[in-house]
């Protein structure tokens, strides 16, 4: 058994690895590259090049993939010759990267004319400036270079006298500002996806991880409640329909299940809002997050989103359960049980249900994929600040790091539930165990 689980885990890791490459490749090398998407079509080539450099987009694909997956700080740390650390700017959610000096003080640098200025962070949070030209290293050709951390969270290499020009984008005005004295090379500092830092959102300028954590929590609550309602309900209704095969109960349940499943959740959601919230005023029609904890303070607002998810998900599982039950009831051993004169309830509960549930449970776990799809639309309709809405809005905004991280998380959930499904299935069905 352990062997089996380990093997499945390894397969899952392999799948996630392929998924990560897929997501990364799609987002990074898509036609109309990231820089173009952000900059608009009319930036000059120099501006684009400068921007790409600052984002580290000019580096080879595999380097960027490694940066994204496991971070760039350890590589930069070797070049700078000091350990690097990430702290939160006091009182804000914004991260800052600093190098750690031998005596433990945090330090960053800036270039002024030909002088390297060290910015040392004091214990009280203020910064002291001092000349630090000892860091320059001169090679045989007489070019002086220095590696350091700049004030925009890059590891950079300055070159004395090169006066590299670079471009800053003044976003609102949609125009560009040329500056000189820029560094020669940039390494944007990040810890990497696997170490909990998938990068900075283009849209908000904040670390993706912080926002994502909140959004996942919200979505987990929504999807969890929906799952906890849909699954027992669908299984029970499916079993009832299956036991009454061909009778009116079965017909009604099957047809109703089919119709709700075939009606897109964006249509049901809108009509539920119109009828239940707006006309009848029974339940709140939108999810308003006046605070982080709104979901606990006013749980009623979850009713309509959960109902919408229930309607769309119910029918599918119901139909599978029904089919499975019908099939089991036709099995020879059930027929034998009937011939032996065992009581109906005993046959159903002791023999049929256990076998009938096997297929649906696997399907249910696979169905988590669908549930995740459902929350994207449902969150959009109800203004629910969850993972689905985050992904949708990131996709619309082409917010590359946000969409990469969000997608990885979603796929991880999907693959994880499949793994659980496999394990549960082998427990329920000894015949295929270890296969």
């Amino acid at each position, binding site marked *: 058994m352990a062997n089996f689980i380990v093997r499945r885990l390894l397969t899952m890791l392999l799948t996630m690895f392929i998924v990560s490459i897929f997501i990364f490749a799609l987002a990074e090398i898509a036609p109309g590259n990231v820089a173009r998407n952000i900059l608009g079509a009319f930036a000059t080539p120099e501006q684009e090049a400068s921007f790409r450099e600052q984002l580290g987009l000019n580096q080879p694909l595999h380097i960027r993939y490694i940066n994204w997956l496991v971070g760039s700080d350890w590589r930069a740390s070797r070049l700078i010759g000091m350990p690097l650390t990430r702290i939160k700017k006091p009182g804000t959610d914004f991260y800052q990267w600093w190098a750690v000096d031998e005596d433990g003080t945090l330090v960053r640098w800036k270039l002024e004319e030909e002088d390297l200025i060290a910015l040392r962070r004091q214990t009280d949070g203020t910064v002291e400036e001092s000349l630090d030209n000892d860091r320059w290293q001169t090679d045989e050709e007489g070019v002086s270079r220095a590696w350091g951390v700049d004030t925009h969270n890059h590891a950079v290499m300055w070159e004395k006298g090169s006066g590299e020009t670079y471009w800053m984008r*003044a*976003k609102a005005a949609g125009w560009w500002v040329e500056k000189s004295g820029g560094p020669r090379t940039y390494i944007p500092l990040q810890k990497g996806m696997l170490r909990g830092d998938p990068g900075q959102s283009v849209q908000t300028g904040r670390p993706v991880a912080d926002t994502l954590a909140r959004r996942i929590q919200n979505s987990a609550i929504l999807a969890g409640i929906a799952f906890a309602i849909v699954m027992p309900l669908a299984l029970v209704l499916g079993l009832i329909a299956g036991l009454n095969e061909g009778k009116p109960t079965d017909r009604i349940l099957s047809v109703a299940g089919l119709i709700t499943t075939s009606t897109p959740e964006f249509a049901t959601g809108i009509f539920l809002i119109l009828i239940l919230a707006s006309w009848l005023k029974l339940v709140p029609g939108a999810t*308003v997050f*006046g*605070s982080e904890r709104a979901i606990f303070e006013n749980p009623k607002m979850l009713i309509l989103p959960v109902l919408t998810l229930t309607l769309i998900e119910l029918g599918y599982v119901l139909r599978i359960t029904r089919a499975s039950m019908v099939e089991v009831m036709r099995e020879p051993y059930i027929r034998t049980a009937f011939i032996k004169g065992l009581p109906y309830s005993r046959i159903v509960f002791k023999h049929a249900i256990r076998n009938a549930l096997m297929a649906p449970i696997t399907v249910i776990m696979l169905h988590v994929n669908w549930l995740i799809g459902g929350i994207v639309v449902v969150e959009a309709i109800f203004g629910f600040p969850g993972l689905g*809405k985050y992904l949708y809005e990131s996709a619309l905004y082409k917010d590359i790091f946000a969409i990469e991280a969000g997608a990885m998380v979603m796929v991880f959930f999907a693959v994880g539930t499949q793994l659980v499904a496999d394990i549960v299935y082998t427990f329920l069905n000894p015949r295929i165990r270890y296969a």
Partner: protein
Amino acid sequence: MHKAIPDLKDQYEKGKMTRREFLRYASLLGMSLGAAQALIAGCAPPATEVPPTEVPPTPTTAPAVPTPTTVPAGPRRGGTLRVRGNIGRIDHPARFSWVANSNPARHVAEYLTLTDENNITHPYLLDSWEASDDLLTWTLNLRQGIKWNNGDDFVADDVVFTMEEWLDEEVGSSTLGLMSYLTEENIEKVNDHTITLHLDSPQIAVPEHLFHYPNQIMNYRTFEGDFIQAPVGTGPYTLDEYSEGERVVLKARADYWQTGADGQPLPYLDEMVYIDLGEEVSAWIAAFQGGEIDAISEPEATVFLALQDDPNANIMGTPTGQTRVLRMRVDKEPWTDNNVRMALKLCQDHEKILAMAHFGEGAPGADFHVAPVHPAYCERPIPPYDPDRARSLLEKAGYADGLTVEIAVASDWTDVVSYAEILKQDAAPAGFDIQINTMPVSAYWDLWTEVDLGVTPWTHRPLGTMVLSLAYTCDDEGEPVPWNETRWCDDEFTSLLTQAEGTLDVEERRQIMCQLEEIQYERGSIGIPYWQGIWMIAHKKVQNWKGHPTQYDLFNELWLEEA
């Protein structure tokens, strides 16, 4: 008293100017509202007098604002106001490119002046201002005793610092184009509470410009280019939380400089929360109907339609100079040719577009960017829908076989999409094949200055000259100013505009406006389909609720009735 004031009074008495216009110009020139009203109190109302109800109540003392408006039952303190808003990423206030950016922030950081819902501008962080006779020298007297929310004193250095940020090319503020008459060297700090501006060209609208939404005053000691990281302001609230796409939480501060009707410092509310409900208006409407939010900032026409009969809704409608601009980039084929631009303009059936895209709520436009609500508006006929002439113009431009163009619109602005669809149908007989390229709002704002043909929303500004200088002028080197999205440069237009900005006499200025409008209509780069009526929607329990033509949320004096 400014020497032009008697002239203004004369004009008013002769009926050339409405009471409201008189009060506006008097206050523009530094006269307090009370004094201005006193000046004309005895005058016979001119023929074109607006109903007196539209004039704000006379405050008992000068200076005009911020005296508290009298509130009938006495305001109740406490409570939280929940407002639907767009919570986008902001950093430098001077770089705000839409009003929604400024609305949560304007309760933390403030402006030197305030243009109220009647289009009248008052001193705000200023105590008063004085303009020289030639309108070239403006002295700004700062209000004393104001504290930043970190305890610092508000002084002239703050204002000088902030103004330098506006004018710094590296910051890239739209104010740079708006206040092109000012350079960093010409801001003179006289003392800790006095600043003198030496303008390059005469300008009457300096006080209005100071209320332009990116012009929030920053603390020179703390501000480092990102307001969220150091939210220090003089306003009545402090920034407690700013989560892009989710919410902004603002907490009342105890030592705000303005006092309410009860003699205590404003604000009456304990807290304000802006909540981002995404772009789904159905969620906004449902949240309002369900009582989960108290107000809707920047509602669209569809929200108005859904809520207009709601017994709990208090809807303030305002005619504005807010519009959807059909903008054609004159540096890109085929829009380099004025015949093509004119042809497309002629394909608009203005009245029909207003009726269908904006449900008749507003006024038809006439393809120049001056609205009937602007004081010096020169009335011109609404251009008729004329596909035949459009077709011949296209032929003249060498597109006898028709012309396929792509128009960029943001899919969430439903009226813009409708406008594009109507245009597509009505332009077909003229030979245009319009492909509609829809994109999310965020993508459009990322590209708005870049697309060849698109529809850009422009907010209301109190004076007609303001938006013209912001969007249709070029600098001395012939480079378009930052928000000149169509890259249209016209020397005659620019010089006439400069002249208008220095002309006080409304009739005289109207004459110049006529020429400006003529030029923009004949060879400009834009079509104006309609001027939007806009609304501010709040629950009835929100007291002191007012509309504002620029959709600025001026919520300092709101209070909540016990529900």
